[in-house]
């Protein structure tokens, strides 16, 4: 287990998440894929903090802030999802092109 292995694992997870975001047509499915991508970013933070950092605890604290901001983001995004479903009765991103109205 070297830093390189951890980084490559994070890159693979990021690519899988991007695949999901590009592939899904359902809004909640896209949000789940975004979670995978943010998780990959967190793995980068932690592995650099463990292998490289002068001040390792600060590196680990950073990912706690990422987790907190992610929780905020999911709360607002899911509220928007519920409102959109109530208005359009659909969560297909291809049908949500009238947001500018």
């Amino acid at each position: 287990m070297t830093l390189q292995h951890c980084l490559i694992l994070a890159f693979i997870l990021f690519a899988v998440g991007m695949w999901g975001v590009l592939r899904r047509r359902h809004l909640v499915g896209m949000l789940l894929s975004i979670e995978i991508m943010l998780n990959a970013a967190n793995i980068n933070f932690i592995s650099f903090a463990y292998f490289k950092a002068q001040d390792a605890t600060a590196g680990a604290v950073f990912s706690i802030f990422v987790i907190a901001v992610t929780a905020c983001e999911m709360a607002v995004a899911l509220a928007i999802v519920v409102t959109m479903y109530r208005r359009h009765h659909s969560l297909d991103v291809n049908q949500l092109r009238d947001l500018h109205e």
Partner: protein
Amino acid sequence: MSLISNALMSDIIFYVVAFAMVATAVAVVLAKNLLQSAVFLIFSFIGTAVLYLLLHAEFNAMAQIMVYAGGVVIFVIFTILLTSHLGESTLYVKLPRTFIALVISAALLAMLVHFILPAQELVTSTPTAGASYASLSAFAFRLLSTDADGLVIPFEIVSILLLVTLVCAITIARKTKEEEDK
């Protein structure tokens, strides 16, 4: 002797956990039903928590399980159940779209790995962090100390951010007056 076997053991655990994480992430992307997707995401997050334990970041592993596997995914499952009928499969995705998305993300992955592979210092680097760098007490003292390198102000800002976003989420998601009258 015992040290070598320890390193080998953590290597084996790392590869098993990494394989499980990638497999469950692919399952999240490919699952037909969104509920299955969310359940696979829980397993992926638990794998991440095990990886954090391997990297000696205990507090992060705990936060990962409590916030992600316990909070966010349950929230997502509630939303799926609120916005669709139980057992309904997701929207049909055409095969070319899946394929093009796969090609784009595989190209991104190939480029990133291509640039990371020549860096020798990433392969040979040994852990600089002490064995207990992110232990609970070190973490708590760091997060709440008011010294120059303490992190109490970001901590408070994050707590205000959480409050504000929760109020915003409730404001967005509640029914308006007209909708209640209907």
